[in-house]
């Protein structure tokens, strides 16, 4: 079950649309924040909160790449390795993260601190390389400053 606060948020979103099902996707984000990732319980909670059948909610949740379907660390690093970032050395950054934290792309550190996802373009080609940590945007990354940035996330 969602927390009271989350249910209130979902209800507010439902009220914005003519059909309740329109609230499924934002509700999934809310549930993801509460549960950490979209556990079966999280999907059931969304189903209960929106009145949309749970199989249908699961169908929606699994269609989109940015919902999380397995446990992730406390902080999610989303690093771009597309053309501009690659040219500016993003792949070396991947190595640094691997060496420093033992973190492979797609994996989570043993202490549950970080998860790393390699992103397609995040629209920061002019200030490449770039990454997202949780919802914070970081650009002009270098081999020096990336660890410093990451050390701010405990």
């Amino acid at each position, binding site marked *: 079950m969602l927390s009271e606060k989350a249910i209130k948020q979902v209800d507010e979103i439902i009220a914005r649309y003519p059909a309740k099902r329109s609230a499924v996707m934002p509700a999934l984000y809310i549930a993801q924040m509460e549960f950490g990732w979209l556990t079966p319980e999280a999907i059931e909670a969304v189903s209960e909160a929106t009145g949309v*059948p*749970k*199989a*249908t909610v*699961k*169908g929606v949740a699994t269609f989109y*790449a940015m919902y999380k379907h397995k446990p992730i660390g406390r902080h999610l690093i989303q690093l771009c390795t597309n053309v501009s970032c690659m040219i500016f050395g993003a792949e070396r950054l991947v190595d640094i993260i691997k060496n420093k934290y033992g973190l492979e792309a797609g994996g989570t550190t043993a202490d549950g601190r970080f998860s790393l996802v390699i992103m397609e373009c995040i629209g920061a080609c002019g200030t490449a390389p770039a990454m997202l940590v949780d919802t914070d945007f970081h650009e002009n990354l270098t081999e020096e400053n990336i660890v410093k940035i990451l050390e701010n996330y405990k």
Partner: protein
Amino acid sequence: MITVTINGKDIKLEKPVTILEAARTAGIEIPTLCYHESLELYGGCRLCLVEVEKMPKLQTACTLYVTDGMVVRTESEQIADARRGILEFLLINHPLDCPYCDKAGECDLQDLVEKYGPTAGRFAEGKRKHPESFDDPIIVRNMERCVMCTRCVRMCDGVQGDSAIAVTNRGSHSFIEPFSGGRYNCEYCGNCLTVCPVGAIMSRLHRHSYRAWLVETEVNTVCSYCGVGCSMVIQVRNNSINRVVPRFGLGINNGLLCVRGRFGYDYVGNEQRIKSPLVKKGGKLEPVTWNEAFNTVADRLKALRERYGGSALAGIASGRCTNEENYVFQKLMRCGLGTNNIDSSARLGYSGAQRYLENIFGQGVTANPIYGIANSEAILIVGGDPTAINPILGLQIRTASRNGARVITIGYAPGLERFNSIGLKPRIFTEGILLSGILCEILKIKPFTGENQTLESVIKGLSLRPAREIAEICRLAEDDIRKAAEAICNVSSISIVIGQDIIQRSNGNRNLFMLSSIGYMLNARMTLLSERPNEQGTIDMGCLPDMLPGGRPLEIETFRKRYEGLAGTEIPSGPGLTLMEMVEAAEAGQIKAMYIMGENPVFNLPDSNAVKKALGSLEFLVVQDIFLSETAKIADVVLPALAWSEKEGTYTNLERRMQHVRRAVDIQGMEDWRIISEIGKRLEVSMPYNSSEDIMAEMVRVSPLHTGLTYEDVDKGNALWPYKGEPLRAEMPSLSLSDENIIADKGKLYLMVRRPLFHSGTLSRRSYALNNICSEPYLRISRAVAERLSVKDGDVLKVSTVKGSLQVKTKVDISLNDSAVLLTNNFEGMGAFSLLGYKLDPVTKAPGIEGTEVTIEKGKPR
């Protein structure tokens, strides 16, 4: 008028339809995979691509509507190329395992590839692996064979309304899955199996034993489970049922079935079937010859009649037997044993309620076509969940809801919770009061018409309380009551669906009066839910203590004389006892012998321990059944009958439509009617029948309702009785609301019967399939009660009432009222009726089972 040219042929159409439909009306075939006439359009498989002049690209015929002057070609080199290409794509991941796929021989993909397909694929990347799922006891999913047509999902969402499965994941990784990823946990209607064009969703029950080309015969028949009477086709191989399937375009169910109909038929093949007649010798039932059994029954009944008179004998007919059998049964009782003590389990709700409504409105008032429900603009549902009791009827309500009808449910109806516009859950046992409040609000909006002055004067004489007061009693929002009344007032076509829960009350007649009044004020169609396939038939065949065949009142001399003249025997003129009265009379020693056909009163009647004692005290008890039921076990003679798939006859469904039940397999044994005829002959009753058709021929002479009817008419679908509007017995009810007895529920819990989707009782619990879907009963409790007792799903609880106690697992049911707990009456030794007392409704004579307090405590794990 629209003219469209397809393959050079001009087709004239009244209204725009899709190219596919236009082509089909002209007999032009266009291949399809994802298209299905019962489902929402999808346009996903791209196999129906056609050329449309002036359109640069190929178009999907299933989604493009024709316009005037459109020129279409359905076959060309370009089209064949496209279809070949699509099929090549569909086969990239397909395992090509036709030799051991059950779908082979009736697989759309196989047929299409044979016709259009590539002889070899060019994709060498290797196939996607997705192991076949055996997590479910009934349904096997093989997602390697799936072509992603989504017919199953559209069936589940848009027709069945269960939404149990969905497309999961994306693109070439997508597959169809229930929420759990394994077990289905759905309504198990199996309608996804019917629409799957390939071997992706298959039944486990006949896995590797079904081959389309090995089916020897197909028999059109009617389902044996509930009062809807769905048409089905029994596919027979080696004189046994291989599979049961529905057919689109056939019957009232039009291609749909429910879990009981589709999977529950296998009880007929259960090893526990009684194979020989049994007679109690030295306290034990011993096998005997048919002749000995017949002579024992005839001699004993004759002796008991001579000693005590006909009024000491009684018979229980069966809503599971055919019309013909029930007709012969009442003839045996009336003419052979000289008694009118005949009734059936229809008394538990259906027959008493129908009689009540017919006395006000006339014969056939509840005989309304089921499809009419789907076309209603508003539907009021009271006293049961139609999606569980009569599932295919329940689907009509879901359809109506999708079409924008206002659906108002009163009480427990979890299957309609996503489909109702207003769901009223009044405090326990106050549904009748709520109805009176709705009536009061309706009277403020609708004027009297003067059509039925007697009824109007009764309504006017009531001191109805307004919504404000009712809301307090029922613990509802005043506004909701008013809204419900308004919702059903302002429409032109309304249906009222009535379930057993409000009939099985000691004041059930009052609930029925309120519904009659609402129905009258709104000119509504009324439908009674029916748990047996032929409850209506028992009524029409005269298996009632005061009615002769054709629904003719016994007390009217002209009817009785006519019956006696045709039968050649005098019959008693006074009415006999109703079902529960018979049991009470047996207990009191007034009934000495009973003949029970196809019924299990020791389990199926409330206060069943007392019923067992009463029937056990009889001097002579004959039970005719297919299984050694709880009742058969205490009988003096047990006569093994044939099951529904083994005999010919007719059933009359709840819309009063007579339908043909056909023999699918030949089994050594005797039909119920043959057994009764043999006994009848020994009691000097004229029973010269060689077939069920002979009985029908006699019955149509006796019953004015069926005059001139033949099996041919039945087969043509002409045997449906419309509303005649003439009450044969004008008994206007009188009632006052001053003595309303409201059961206080403060902190107390009350046990009620749950009528589930997966089981019906004596038969279903012997179905392998249904037992695999649902193997044990659960006590349903509300969330509040669960929290109070701090129990969770699966905990074993001890449930006790004054009548006894049971240990049963629990399940929290969010649809439940706080003070009600529900238990089914399906599983041996675990029936709710063993814990429930009853008080007869003085008018309908249905047992009122309300008001049994129950205590719940944590039990020991079994």
